[in-house]
């Protein structure tokens, strides 16, 4: 890994992100300038102001302000696995909603989450996910008539 990346702290990373946001805002402002309908102001005005401010704050954070002494620690091992597993499950749940439909996706997604959080037996997880899915179905689909995805299975 390059030396400067090893030395980069969270603060520097955050500063670079804000510099990037500032550049994006300025770029969009320049793109919108020709589309201005009035002479004084347009949709580019606010992005221009914001871009300058973001760039300035990002530079300040990266190169001027001293990084805090306190280092941030992230979980490891089993806990890290649970956190990553939960987020992966949620993204998979989101991806499946359009194809498997709301009922099946919720049943599967919540079952996996109960397993990750509580380390219950699969039978217990499936009972809990059935209860949760049924409750949400009754509230949102039966009572509130919200149009949830039905997917390729048709329900």
């Amino acid at each position, binding site marked *: 890994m390059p030396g400067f990346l090893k030395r980069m702290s*969270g603060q520097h990373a*955050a500063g670079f992100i*804000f510099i990037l*946001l500032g550049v*994006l805002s300025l770029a*969009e402002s320049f*793109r*919108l300038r020709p*589309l201005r*309908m*009035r*002479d*004084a*102001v*347009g*949709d580019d*005005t*606010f*992005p221009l102001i*914001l871009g300058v*401010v*973001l760039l300035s*704050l*990002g530079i*300040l*954070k990266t190169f001027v*302000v001293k990084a*805090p002494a*306190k280092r*941030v620690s992230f*979980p490891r091992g089993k*806990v890290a696995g649970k*956190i990553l597993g*939960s*987020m992966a499950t*949620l993204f998979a*749940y*989101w991806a499946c*909603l*359009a194809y498997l439909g709301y009922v099946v996706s*919720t049943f599967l*997604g*919540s079952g996996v*989450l*109960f397993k990750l*959080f*509580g*380390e*219950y037996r699969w039978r217990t997880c499936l009972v*809990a996910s059935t209860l*949760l899915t049924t409750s*949400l179905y009754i*509230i*949102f689909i039966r009572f*509130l*008539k*919200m*149009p*949830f*995805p039905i997917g390729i299975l048709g329900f």
Partner: protein
Amino acid sequence: MALVGALLGTIVGVLPGLGPTSAIAILIPLTSVLPPTPAIIMMAGIFYGAMYGGSTTAILLNIPGEVASVPTCLDGYPLAQQGKGGPALGIAAIGSFMAGTLGVVGLTFFAPFLADQALKFGPPEYFGLMILAMTVMVGLSGGSLLKSLMMGCTGYFLSLAGIGPASGFPRFNYGTVALYGGVELISVVIGIFAIAEVLIGLEESRTAVAMQKIGSVYPSLKDLKMSFRPMVRGTGVGFFLGLLPGCAPAVTTFLAYDLEKKASLHPERFGQGAMEGVAAPESANNATSQAGFIPLMALGIPASPPLAVLLGGLMIYGLQPGPLLFKDHPSFVWAVIASMFIGNALLLVLNLPLVGLWARLTAIPYAIMGPVIMVICIVGAFTVNNNLNDVFVCLVFGIIGYLMRKYEWPAVPLILCFILGPLLERGLIESLAISGGSVLIFFQRGISLGLLIAAGILLFLSIKLMKRTERRVKEEEGSSVPQKGEFGS
């Protein structure tokens, strides 16, 4: 009808992603079988029931039911973690009742006069008001003004995506159709608050939301005494600002929270479980809801999206809100006003007994509550626009919210500026369009100048208060790093 409306509104308002606008829109068909007056009474009940309902999950689970409930999370959730979820809910209910009642009094006696005053607010005045609201960012910075400013700017940046207000051309969408409508605020809020909170709970291996034994489920006399003045102040802020069309409860609740923090002798308690931090924004929330009826009834101008839907409901029944409504249909107007008072009382009667039941939710094992909260978040994010892209946004901001918590970056400035961004930009663009590009317009109009001066004074006071709080915390704890709340508030 008021009872039924308040009950239904509360139930729907509890569900994240479904705010008062959605609640009224979903439940309007239920009112179609009723004659006009009972139907409108029921719709009004749904409106303020939904406004109250959002606070329940905000306090107990850190999931704001709507954006206006975000300030309630800041102290309500820490209170729930301390086993005081019941008293917090009770104070929210009592504060809502008090604010609603005073709001009805204002509506009864001052509706036409106050509506005329609200008309004096033009784009420069709105711009000044948004600048004033921005000063709240300083008070909620949690000790790092730079981080607060950076997060505020990020909030503005996110609010820019979508269709430009001046030209109607899309911006910041980078060719993505999903971003034509912008980034959905409630998805961001649910992700940053609720999903991130569950991930932190998983990291800390929590056994339940309430990490201390649940004490009394009702507020004590001490809680009530402590909350009385914040309720009055919150009501004042919410009511007078709620008269302004476009000034949403999301803005007034933040202002009320910040005002309370400034008025407190111990501002360092805010963010750690201060009862005043629940009383003020909840009162402001309900007061704004009530005040919104004044421009609606007197001038036919809906002050917020839920009231716009309500206006549609009124027109379905052939009632045209405006100056003539009081003259042509006085019995209808007074029936609605009377129902508001009854509805507020019923909300209190309905919700206070349930407070104990809701509070017990915090004792449910986290291994069960965590997955339930996550699934409800996904469902809530989807129901905002029936759009899966909003769910994706929610999940991405869940990760971002987790990282923000780890690195102690405050979330509230991001949310606040996301709300204020479009209003600020519109005020700026319209004002400069009126003046032909001259910024002097903001200083030539009395109300606008007054608001900008007030913003300057508040900014100075906020910075001073922040320094004083830092000094006090350092003295008390003898550490070199200031104590921060969960979200740097």
